[in-house]
């Protein structure tokens, strides 16, 4: 019998109990490698599996939890040795029974980027190796997972290299989240989207403490639910668990009405627990629960249910934005992150991400943008491209359940995009247009919406995951059709029961006072059933319209959200000490008054050359701060505040230059990198801000940077000054290697090194040209180097 049949035919499926606990009882030392025993002590494994089979397990997990290339390193066996041996032992124990053998796979043991250094693609590769080595199992179980991203890599590796059923269980703490902050809803939405066979929870807590976790999970899925709790909680000194087999079965019984289908035990359990569990389950009926899972998208930490209007921020898009285009061309991810954070502070619930621009590699930029954004923001993303390959790359790299923007009613679009939406478990925006363009009438657009829905259902995409965009046309050009859009929204919403999306800002193109037109149109569309306005949340009248709508329609109960935004005192930045009546730019910079400094810069630009503002005001103000810092009168947090303010001025100047075509203020290009292996890059980032303030273009390669990347970047961009940073004694050698490689490749450059553990002597010893003891000194060196 296979796993899927087992699920259909048995009321409950019983798993086994702990492996580690049993192996320790047999003599495995703490911190030893359990998987080595598959080869060294096969009898131990066969015996343990047999005990569980005799206790009533329908499935035993082979001893492969940590059999990945990273964890096996220290024991000398390979994945290809440890995994087949484990499955062989389990099979031997199962002889003469119907018991199935699961390939058991736990976390790799290293955190993924950006908190760790392992990439998503490397994680995928590590899992792929395990899946291929375990092809003889009956099913694949991923368990004790705490990072949804790592689990996604694992599931994709399994789906793409095996036909075996997949079970995923994650480990939640009492705060209903995993160690990396994954929410239960996000886990369920993402994994069900990826098409796994069963999901659930294991480890961390006992069956009693896991009740609320299981209760929540059962609300978010219609897949079979798996629960494999610990034998209660361990005592930190004795390591003994506090839940007896009898209590374990008793608490497990309480989980049955929630809809649990598959049960077993994790740490601290043994065959006695499984026996009691089997006895308890005997004669009991599985409780089938059907949930209407709502339309929703999610990041790992945050689920956005589309049960009320949700704002999709439109600003991450280069169309019509010179500064954004420049940032893309310069690979300036920080600019994109800044745009993201600004929109979220303004009220965006979801962010659209479009990085399409001629002259850049849209696919790699999209992956980079998605990875960087999800490392920083909690809101879900809507990946936006006209190119299916770009969409697929984004869907792969995304952590959670995203929205795809977009598919349209053309057959080729449907055939290219919908399979991706299905495979990666996303939601999708369907545009009501086809090869004949946008139909004028609401009825025709409705027809196209229906076609998209029907096709999506054929591909196995849930109805709730199809959002329709009835397309806004500009009122100045096609005034007579504005109401067609609004009416189409109403029909799609009411007759098809689908969620609706609309890019709002287009309506006013070519008109004066666009804001007035925009927020009135927005309100009209909302009252007709618009769920997802794609708009600029930074314009308060727009966000306010959505908030007012929610207040007036009784969604925002007791006007709590509205009042929190518009009631009482507005939050203001702390005033400068010894405030002047009239402040000037140097004063604003010295006192860290960002907004004032930016406004003053904009005003000055009307009469002063950009370069003069930089040379006569920004730099002297920074110099003054720098000198006081050196004297110990000013401390680092203050120096950085000053620098941050100057940065705001620079942003204004950059925008101005781009709009007028005036000569750039760049004083030279510098590469900065935190060396391979090192993930502490705050120091480097402080240096970056200061250098940028002095008018240097910084190419920031980030942290954990390969030696070769530095070399390639210097050659490609014709850069002659390179700054390297290391914060750990263990990564100093990477600094040395980077310098060495630059020299070997005869890169014509000077190298500055710095960081907590670097000394002047060390700098000289590894052949660097300069040692900078702090950020200020890096600037001094750059000025000397460029002679400006």
């Amino acid at each position, binding site marked *: 019998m296979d796993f899927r049949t087992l699920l259909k035919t048995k009321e409950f499926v019983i798993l086994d109990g702990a492996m580690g606990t049993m192996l320790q009882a047999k003599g495995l030392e703490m911190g030893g490698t359990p998987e080595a025993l598959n080869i060294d002590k096969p009898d131990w494994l066969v015996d343990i599996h047999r005990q569980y089979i005799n206790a009533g397990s329908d499935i035993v997990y082979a001893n492969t939890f940590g059999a990945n290339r990273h964890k096996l390193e220290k024991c000398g066996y390979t994945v290809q040795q440890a995994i087949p041996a484990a499955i062989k032992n389990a099979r031997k124990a199962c002889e003469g029974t119907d018991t199935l053998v699961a390939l058991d796979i736990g976390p790799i043991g290293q955190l993924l980027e950006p908190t760790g250094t392992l990439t998503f693609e490397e994680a995928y590769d590590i899992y792929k190796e395990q899946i291929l080595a375990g092809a003889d199992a009956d099913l694949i179980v991923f368990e004790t997972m705490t990072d949804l991203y790592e689990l996604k890599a694992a599931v994709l590796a399994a789906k793409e290299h095996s036909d075996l059923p997949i079970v995923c269980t994650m480990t939640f703490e009492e705060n209903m989240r995993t160690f990396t902050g994954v929410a239960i809803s996000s886990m369920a939405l993402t994994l069900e989207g990826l098409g796994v066979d069963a999901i659930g929870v294991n480890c961390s807590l006992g069956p009693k403490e896991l009740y609320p976790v299981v209760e929540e999970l059962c609300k978010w899925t219609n897949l079979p639910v798996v629960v494999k709790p610990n034998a209660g909680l361990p005592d930190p000194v004795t390591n003994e668990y506090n839940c007896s087999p009898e209590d374990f079965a008793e608490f497990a019984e309480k989980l049955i009405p929630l809809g649990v289908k598959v049960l077993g035990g994790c740490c601290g359990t043994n065959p006695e627990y499984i026996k009691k569990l089997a006895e308890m389950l005997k004669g009991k009926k599985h409780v089938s629960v059907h949930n209407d899972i709502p339309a929703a998208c999610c990041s790992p930490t945050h689920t956005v249910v589309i049960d009320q209007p949700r704002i999709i921020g439109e600003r991450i898009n280069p169309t019509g934005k010179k500064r954004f285009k420049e940032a893309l061309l310069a690979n300036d991810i920080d600019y994109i992150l800044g745009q993201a954070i600004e929109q979220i502070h303004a009220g965006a619930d979801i962010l659209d991400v479009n990085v399409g621009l001629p002259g850049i590699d849209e696919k790699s930029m999209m992956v980079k943008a998605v990875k960087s954004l999800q490392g920083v923001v909690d809101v879900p993303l809507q990946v936006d491209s006209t190119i299916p390959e770009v969409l697929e790359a984004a869907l792969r790299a995304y952590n959670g359940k995203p929205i795809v923007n977009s598919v349209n009613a053309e057959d080729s679009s449907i055939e290219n995009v919908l399979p991706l939406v299905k495979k990666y478990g996303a939601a999708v925006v369907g545009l009501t247009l086809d090869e004949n363009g946008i139909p004028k009438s609401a009825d025709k657009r409705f027809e196209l919406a229906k076609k998209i829905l029907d096709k999506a259902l054929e591909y196995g995409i849930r109805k709730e995951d199809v959002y329709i965009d009835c397309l806004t046309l500009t009122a100045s050009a096609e005034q007579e059709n504005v109401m067609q859009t609004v009416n189409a929204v109403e029909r799609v919403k009411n007759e098809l029961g689908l969620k609706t999306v609309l890019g709002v800002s287009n309506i006013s193109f070519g008109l004066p006072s666009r804001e007035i037109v925009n927020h009135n149109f927005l309100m009209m569309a909302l009252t007709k059933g618009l769920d997802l306005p794609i708009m600029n949340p930074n314009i308060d009248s727009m966000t306010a319209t959505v908030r007012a709508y929610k207040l007036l329609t009784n969604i925002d109960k007791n006007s709590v959200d509205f009042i929190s935004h518009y009631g009482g005192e507005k939050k203001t930045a702390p005033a400068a000490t010894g405030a002047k009546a009239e402040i000037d730019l140097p004063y604003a910079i010295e006192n860290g008054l960002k907004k004032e400094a930016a406004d003053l810069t904009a005003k000055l630009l009307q009469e002063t050359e950009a370069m003069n503002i930089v040379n006569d005001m920004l730099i002297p103000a920074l110099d003054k701060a720098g000198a006081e810092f050196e004297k110990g009168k000013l*401390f680092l947090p203050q120096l950085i505040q000053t620098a941050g303010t100057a940065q705001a001025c620079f942003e204004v100047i950059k925008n101005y230059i781009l709009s007028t075509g005036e000569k750039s203020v760049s004083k030279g290009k510098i590469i900065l990198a935190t060396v391979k292996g090192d993930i502490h890059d*705050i120091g480097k980032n402080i240096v970056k801000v200061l250098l940028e303030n002095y008018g240097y273009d910084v190419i920031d390669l980030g942290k954990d940077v390969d030696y070769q990347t530095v070399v390639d970047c210097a050659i490609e961009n014709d850069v002659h000054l390179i700054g390297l940073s290391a914060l750990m004694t263990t990564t100093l050698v990477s600094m040395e290697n980077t310098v060495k490689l630059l020299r070997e490749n005869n890169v014509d450059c000077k190298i500055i090194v710095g960081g907590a553990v670097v000394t002047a002597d060390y700098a000289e010893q590894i052949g660097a040209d300069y040692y900078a003891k702090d950020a200020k000194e890096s600037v001094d060196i750059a000025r000397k180097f460029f002679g400006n």
Partner: protein
Amino acid sequence: MKLEHINVKEAVRYMGMGNNKPDERTALLIDECEKELLKVIEPKFVYRVFDVAHKENGVEVIGTPLFLGGNDICRHLEGCSKCVLFAATISSGVDRKLRAYEAEDMAKAMIADCLASAAVEQVCDIVDNTVKEKLSGYNQTWRFSPGYGDLPISVQRVFLDVLNAQKFIGLNATENNILTPRKSVTAIIGLSKNEISKGRRGCACCNMREVCQFRKRGDHCGF
């Protein structure tokens, strides 16, 4: 477990301000960052007690594959029959918050980074006190971490495995033995029935002593 506040005084020292009082604007930023950090800090720790065997070139942790090599750890555990291995973290939500600050405002990022470092030390203090309560019959040494003195940081992975720290508190190490989440600590506390001399702590056995920013200013990191 929750932290109610962060030891701001300590954090201000990490910011390079010694015992100076922060100016008004910085103080406001510190206040804001502290509040935001406290929302995401999830303090967690795991510890276990082991018997130790003193060898010529290091200390064996009995019942585990862990060998703590070097003269400094020998000195640290001199006269100790047992040791506590512990790992503590304020969890990955903090890493995320710090990344967000770096994208938003470097001053906040720098301040929050120092506050987070102070917070993880507070969790270590909690471990210290917990050990004191649970093992009241022993005198405790201070906390000695892999990478201090001549104790190689390469013991990090086995150290974490022995504590099963990945499973219990979500703590991992990179290929270069850097702890992730970043604001985390692993350390060894010696347990002795005898009095422990006060002299066995401080800069002398710290491998950061030559480059330490605190020492350069004539200050001390607190150990």
